[in-house]
C-alpha cells in the first residue's frame, strides 16, 4: 500500500464515518421531535420546508451563527477538547461495523473487544466537559454520566461475551456471517433485552438520561456549551451514538445487513431506523430514574441476569458442543417468559424495596352533604 492509496482510503473512511454522524444529526433530532409531537398529540416542527423537513438545517444555521462562548473560569483547553473526544468515539466505532456482505472498514479479529473498548472512550469526554466547564450542574452531570456508564458497561460486556461464545469468534464479520440461518435475537432474547436496556443507559437516553437531566441539572455536562459545540453534543454525538449503537446491536442480534431478498446495507439502515424509533418512543413515554435506583437496577437486576445467562450459555456449549443453539434458545426463551411474567414484581422490588404496599392506601372520603 503506497502512501497515496493510504491517504485516499483514509479520506474515504473519514467521509463515511463523518457522513454517518452528520446524517444522524440531521435525521434523528428532527424525527424525535416529530414523533414526540405525534405521541403528545400535537404537530412538532412543521413550518420550515415541506413537513418541516428543513428544520434541522435551520437549527444548524442558528447554532452555527451563535457566538462561541467559553466561561471565563473554564479550563480552556479541556473545554475545547471534550466535545472533540466524544465526537470521535462513535466515528471510531463505525470502523468494525459490517455494512454489507464483504464491506467492513476494518475486519478486526477482536472486533467485539474493540467495540467495547472504543465505545467507553466517550466517558472521558463527558467527564472532561463536566469538569472543565467550572459549573456545578456540569460537574454533577459529568460525574453522573461516569458512574452510570461504568456501571452499565458491565452488563453490556457480559452480553457481548455471550454472543462471542455463540459465534466462537470476536470478529463482527463472523458474528453477522454466522447468523445466516437464525438471528441471535431468536437464540438469545434474554441477552438482547439486557443489551437493549444497558445500551440505552450507555447512550444516556430516557429513562436513563440523568447526566443531562433537564429538569434537574439544566443540561448536565453540556450546560456551559453554546453554539456549534452545543450542537456537537446535543445533535451529533447523542444521535450519532444512537446510530452506531443501533448498528452494533443489529450486527450482534438482528443479523446486521441480512434480510430477505439478499442482504445489503439497506437492511442495516432499516434496522437502525427501527431501533432509533424505539429509543424515541421510550423517550416519549417514561419518566426519569433516580441516581441510586439507576445504579441498583444495573447491579441488582441486569448484572445478575447477565451472569446467570452467561453461565448457562457456557454450560450448554460445553455439554453439547455440536448442537448448542437449540438448548440455549430454549433456556433463554423460558427465562424471558418467566422474567416478563415476574417483571413488574422484579422491577418493583429492585426499585422500590419496602415502599411498595403504600399504593393501596388511597381512599375516597364520602362526606355527608
Amino acid at each position: 500500500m503506497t502512501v497515496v492509496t493510504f491517504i485516499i482510503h483514509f479520506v474515504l473512511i473519514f467521509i463515511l464515518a463523518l457522513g454517518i454522524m452528520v446524517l444522524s444529526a440531521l435525521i434523528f433530532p428532527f424525527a424525535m421531535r416529530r414523533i414526540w409531537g405525534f405521541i403528545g398529540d400535537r404537530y412538532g416542527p412543521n413550518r420550515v420546508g415541506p413537513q418541516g423537513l428543513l428544520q434541522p438545517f435551520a437549527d444548524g444555521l442558528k447554532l452555527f451563527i451563535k457566538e462561541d462562548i467559553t466561561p471565563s473560569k473554564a479550563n480552556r483547553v479541556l473545554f475545547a477538547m471534550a466535545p472533540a473526544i466524544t465526537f470521535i468515539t462513535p466515528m471510531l466505532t463505525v470502523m468494525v461495523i459490517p455494512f454489507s456482505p464483504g464491506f467492513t472498514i476494518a475486519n478486526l479479529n477482536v472486533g467485539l473487544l474493540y467495540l467495547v473498548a472504543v465505545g467507553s472512550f466517550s466517558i472521558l469526554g463527558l467527564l472532561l466537559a463536566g469538569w472543565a466547564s467550572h459549573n456545578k450542574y456540569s460537574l454533577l452531570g459529568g460525574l453522573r454520566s461516569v458512574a452510570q456508564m461504568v456501571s452499565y458497561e458491565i452488563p453490556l460486556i457480559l452480553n457481548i461475551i455471550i454472543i462471542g461464545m455463540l459465534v466462537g469468534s470476536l470478529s463482527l464479520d463472523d458474528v453477522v456471517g454466522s447468523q445466516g440461518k437464525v438471528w441471535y435475537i431468536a437464540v438469545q432474547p434474554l441477552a438482547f433485552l439486557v443489551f437493549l436496556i444497558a445500551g440505552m443507559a450507555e447512550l444516556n437516553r430516557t429513562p436513563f438520561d440523568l447526566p443531562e437531566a433537564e429538569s434537574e441539572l439544566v443540561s448536565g455536562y453540556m450546560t456551559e456549551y453554546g453554539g456549534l459545540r452545543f450542537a456537537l453534543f446535543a445533535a451529533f454525538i447523542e444521535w450519532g451514538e444512537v446510530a452506531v449503537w443501533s448498528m452494533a446491536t443489529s450486527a450482534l442480534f438482528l443479523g446486521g445487513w441480512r434480510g430477505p431478498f439478499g442482504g445489503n446495507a439497506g437492511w442495516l439502515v432499516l434496522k437502525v431506523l427501527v431501533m432509533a424509533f424505539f429509543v424515541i418512543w421510550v423517550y416519549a413515554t417514561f419518566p426519569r430514574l433516580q441516581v441510586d435506583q439507576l445504579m441498583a437496577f444495573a447491579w441488582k437486576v441486569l448484572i445478575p441476569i447477565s451472569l446467570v445467562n452467561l453461565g448457562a450459555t457456557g454450560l450448554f456449549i460445553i455439554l453439547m458442543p455440536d448442537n448448542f443453539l437449540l438448548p440455549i434458545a430454549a433456556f433463554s426463551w423460558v427465562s424471558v417468559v418467566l422474567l416478563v411474567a415476574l417483571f413488574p414484581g422484579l422491577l418493583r422490588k429492585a426499585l422500590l424495596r419496602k415502599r411498595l404496599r403504600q399504593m393501596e392506601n388511597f381512599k375516597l372520603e364520602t362526606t355527608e352533604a
Partner: protein
Amino acid sequence: MSDNITDIDVSSLQPAMEEPLMTGYEQPVFRLEEMIINMGPQHPSTHGVLRLVVHLDGELVINVDPVIGYLHRGMEKLAENRTYLQFLSMASRLDYLSGIFMEWPYVMCIEKLMEIEVPPRAEYLRVIVGELNRIISHHMSYGDFLLNLGAGTPFFWAFRDRETVMDMLEMLTGQRMMYNYMRIGGVRYDMTDGFEEACRRFIKDFPPKIDEYEKLVTDNEIFLSRTLGLGAITPEEALDYGLSGPNIRATGIPWDLRRQQHYSVYDDFDFEIPLGRNGDSFDRYKCRIEEMRQSLRIIEQALDGIPGGPVNVKMPPVLRPPAGEVFCAVESPRGEWADYLVSDGGLRPYRLKMRDPSFVAISALPRILPGHKIADVIGIGGSLDLIMGGVDR
C-alpha cells in the same frame, strides 16, 4: 367530618409506611465537602422564579433555603391605592393558574361587609367556573410534575385538554386565564349560548382522558420509584406548618373548606374528598387526579340544578363598604386561599392581606427535602404544586 380543624384527631392518622419517613439528613461518618447549588431563580423547573439554595453532600440534600420575592409586585399595597372594583381585575393575576379563586374570597369579603345577598344563579355559576378552573390548575400541576420527573408527554396531553377547558372559560368569562368574572354581588355574565353543551360534552369526554393520564403514569414503576414514600410529611407536621389543599389531604386529614366552611352553595352537591394516607408525593399526585373527577361531578350537578333568575344584584355606582374587618377563605386548587380585608368606610380598602397556600408549602420545604436526592428537590417541589405568582404577590 368536623367543621374545625383542631377537632380532627391526628393520632388516628398515623401513616401506614413500613419504611420510616425521611426525617432529614443524617451526617455520615465520612462527611464529604458540602456543595452549595443555587437552583433558580432561572432554572428549567422551579415554577416561575423560586430560588432554592441547596446544600449538597454529593447528590444528597443536607439543607434547603427557599428564597422568595423575585416576582414581588406589591399587590397588597396596590389594593390599598385602588377602589374596591379596580382591584378586582388584578386579583386573578396573583396565582395566575387559578385566578377565579383569588377573585372569589375578595368579593366574598366585600359582600360580607356590605351584607349583600348573592342570587343563587350567580352562586351556581361561581361554582361551575371555579371547578373548571380547579381542573385546569390540576392539569398544569399534573403536567408540570411529570415534566419535573423527566416525562414530557403527560405535559402535552394535559395541555391539550386544558385548552378545551380554557375555551369554555373564555365562552363564559371572555378570558382564558385572567377572568375578572366575579362581581360584588354576583358574576359578570350569564351563561353564553353553547356553554352548557360544551360543558356537558366535556363532562362526558374527560373521564376517559383522566384514565388515560393514569394509565400512562400511575402504575409505571419508574414513576412509583420517584414518588412513593418520597417527600412525605406526617399529619402532625402538616398541621403545624399549616399546609392545606391536596397537600394536607394527602396526609389523611379530611380538611376541605368546600365541606367545612359551607361557603357558597357547595352544600347542595354530592362529592367526595380524596384522602391519601402517607403524605408523600404519590398521594398528593393521586389526590389531584381524583379531585379532577370530583370536580366534574360537581359541575354536572351544578349544571343540572342551576336555578333561573338574575346573576347580579344592583350595586351603587360608588362602593363604600362600612368600616370593619372581615376574613374569607376558599378552597383553591392549591389549598386555602384567604383574604383578610380591613375597611375604614372609605373608597379603598384600608388593608388587604392574602394567605397563599403555596407560600405555606414553600415554608415546609426545608423540613421535607433534607435527606432526599437532588433530583427529588425538583420532583417534590412539583408535587407540592408551588406557584410563585401567589407566593410573591
